[in-house]
């Protein structure tokens, strides 16, 4: 047996790659996890995690040089001084935007599991059924019952805090104790929930992958709200805090950083993949690794890229392209729309601690036979907080009184922002642009995707409903916002290698296996046949655990 031969290969080390590695190694499979970027060692490499705000030279802001170096990242909040080295080097790894697409990437061990937003929501059967009922895209080959036990399993291991709210569209899970709403959120929620009692609208505390009780090797959340620097307490789910140590503990895992998988090696005689080709990002040498099963978890767009570069002698557009759907149906959540206002009173109340979580309002539109002028729906995330006084008092603009006022707590504000479902449009896609090369001479992706009529109509509701609900819950001076809908900005890319029931119209089967190479499993966001409006990572975890255990069973039976 060559030293380059394993039972399983996992391409990528983010949320889904980490889960694949954990499940495969747990089942005794010798597994190599290939990560294109550098290693980041849990705790040790979280270099900024214990710095105070005043220890950052620009207090966390962005310099002109940073804006020059990160022309994509600068378009939204991720560009900042505190975790700059967690984001991809854009000069080394460019991509082509046919239409603006904000692609925020993390190329290192742990991927975006280190910087993710941690909101974790189950899907409901409504989400799995709507494609079929409405004739959109393809029918999901699975239903909620297929995923339900896996949700329970991954929630228990990852550690999801949340309240059992009994909201039908958002099934309750295997939760740790919930975080707490602050005093204003509690009252706004009580008023909103009372007002909309007969309309099935609910404001609940966010369900988040921050643990509120210890887990082995992990301490419960310390309310620092510095998650995206990496948590020295391991208090939020990341590859490093959760799945990686479990996989390493089995003795079955090898991690190889700096390993760009350039293609999956396809054997046309067995109609299976036999391994992968790796370009070492540091020495530029090419290596081959072999295994019985391959999990492709390079993130939605890069997993499509790997497939497009593979088996091109059989299928010019790559492995999994026989349906004509590879790279197509690219989705995201559209956001940047909502409302906010001020809350009167509560001057003698405040809160302490920095809660890395907010409130959530699950989808309520187009359920219960309601018919809007768009299909699907949206949820809201938000929260209440207090500002400083001094900034709002014009007659105290400078001087000692102004200085003192800066220390005093100010007005309460409350805001909510929508996360809207984006439909799978065949023409929203990515493809290889062979004329543009990255630092390693590899062709890059061109991305051509945009929001369409359904999303734009939905956004009108997203703004107006937010205003109406806040006002009905007693929030004053409510203003709406509705920014340009840009895909990618949700950082929830999905759909480029969708699951389905028919190899003619989908890339993956019901077990996330590539129809054209059954020992290749794609379980990151690429596999999604629709987007729903819930934050998707928890669903990737459940799909991955399910697929990895199926892969093991199939391997035992000799089916892959």
């Amino acid at each position, binding site marked *: 047996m060559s030293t380059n031969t394993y039972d399983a290969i996992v391409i990528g080390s983010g949320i889904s790659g980490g889960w694949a590695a954990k499940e495969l190694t747990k089942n005794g499979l010798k597994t190599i996890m290939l990560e294109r970027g550098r290693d980041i060692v849990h705790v040790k490499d979280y270099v900024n995690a*214990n710095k*105070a*705000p*005043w220890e950052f*030279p*620009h*207090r966390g*802001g*962005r*310099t*002109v*040089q940073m804006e020059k170096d990160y022309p994509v990242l600068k378009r939204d909040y991720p560009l900042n001084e505190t975790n700059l080295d967690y984001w991809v080097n854009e000069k080394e790894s460019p991509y082509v935007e046919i239409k603006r697409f904000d692609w925020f990437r993390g190329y290192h061990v742990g991927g975006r599991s280190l910087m993710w937003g941690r909101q974790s929501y189950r899907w409901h059967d409504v989400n799995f059924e709507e494609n079929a009922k409405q004739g959109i895209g393809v029918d999901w080959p699975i239903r909620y019952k297929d995923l339900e036990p896996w949700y329970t399993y991954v929630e228990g291991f990852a550690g999801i805090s949340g309240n059992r709210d009994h909201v039908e569209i958002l099934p309750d899970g295997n939760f740790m104790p919930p*975080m*707490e*709403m*602050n*005093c204003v*959120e*509690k009252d706004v929620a009580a008023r909103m929930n009372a007002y909309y009692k007969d309309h099935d609208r609910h404001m609940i505390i966010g369900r988040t992958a921050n643990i509120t009780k210890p887990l082995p090797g992990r301490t419960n959340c*310390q*309310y*620092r709200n510095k998650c995206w620097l990496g948590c020295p307490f391991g208090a939020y789910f990341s590859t490093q805090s959760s799945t990686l140590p479990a996989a390493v503990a089995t003795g079955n895992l090898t991690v190889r950083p700096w390993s760009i998988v350039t293609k999956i090696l396809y054997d046309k005689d067995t109609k299976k993949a036999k391994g992968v080709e790796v370009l070492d990002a540091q020495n530029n040498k090419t290596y081959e690794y072999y295994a019985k099963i391959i999990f492709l978890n390079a993130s939605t767009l890069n997993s499509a890229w790997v497939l497009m570069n593979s088996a091109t002698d059989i299928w010019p557009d790559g492995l999994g392209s026989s349906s004509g759907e590879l790279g197509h149906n690219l989705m995201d959540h559209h956001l940047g729309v909502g409302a906010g206002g001020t809350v009167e009173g509560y*001057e*003698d*109340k*405040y*809160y*302490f*601690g*920095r*809660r890395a979580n907010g409130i959530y309002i699950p989808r309520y539109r187009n359920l219960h036979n309601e018919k809007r002028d768009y299909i699907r729906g949206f949820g809201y995330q938000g929260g209440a*907080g*207090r500002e*400083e006084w*001094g*900034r709002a008092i*014009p007659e105290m*603009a*400078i*001087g*000692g009184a*102004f*200085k*003192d006022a*800066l*220390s*005093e*707590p100010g007005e309460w504000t409350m805001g909510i922002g929508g996360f809207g479902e984006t439909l799978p449009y065949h023409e929203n896609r990515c493809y290889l642009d062979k004329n543009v090369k990255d630092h390693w001479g590899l062709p890059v992706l061109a991305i051509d995707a945009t929001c369409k009529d359904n999303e734009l109509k939905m956004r009108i509701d997203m703004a107006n409903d937010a205003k109406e609900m806040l006002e009905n819950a007693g929030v004053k001076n409510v203003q709406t916002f509705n920014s340009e809908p840009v895909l990618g900005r949700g950082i929830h890319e999905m759909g480029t290698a969708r699951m389905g029931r028919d190899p003619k119209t989908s890339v993956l089967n019901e077990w996330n296996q590539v129809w054209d190479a059954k020992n290749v499993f794609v379980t990151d966001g690429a596999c999604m046949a629709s987007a729903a409006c819930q934050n998707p990572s928890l669903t990737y975890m459940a799909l991955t655990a399910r697929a990895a255990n199926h892969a093991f069973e199939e391997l035992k039976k000799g089916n892959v």
Partner: protein
Amino acid sequence: MDRRTALKNLALVIGSAALLPRCTEHNPVTHFKNFDVTNDQQSLVADMAETIIPKTGTPGAKDLMLDQFVWLMLDDCTKKDDQKTFFKGMGEFNDLTKKTYNKSFADLDKKQKEDLLNTFEKKSNGYSKELNGFFSTVKGLTVFGYTESKYFMTKEIVYELIPGRYNAWLPVKNNIAAKNG
């Protein structure tokens, strides 16, 4: 040109030549990455910052070196064009001070400094965009530097690196706030 005028001109030339190094010596230049700043300019920003966040029973802008923070942010985080606008506005600010008080800002008393800066808080002050921009940049960065300073975050408000808990309903007394940023 008669001899007298020629001598006078010569004296002027020599005079200014003699004045120049003395002036530079008096008003040395600090090199930042993107611009040079004279001592007078540094003093102006420091005096303005001190007027905005004065030393009272608690530290002021000079104690906390907020002027240095203003320059750092202007140097690193401000685009070239906006830096130019800042210096143009600064020139206009000096002109305004001269015009109003026939003095430089450094020589104004505390009340005059406050009065002058307070004119910027009026919406229709008639000042140019550059002049208003100069003031709001100095003020904005001074206040930002103050509220993000170690002194402010540890002594004025309660910042804990590791709160360890979330108290959702905390009674507040007058001047005690908990920083939640």
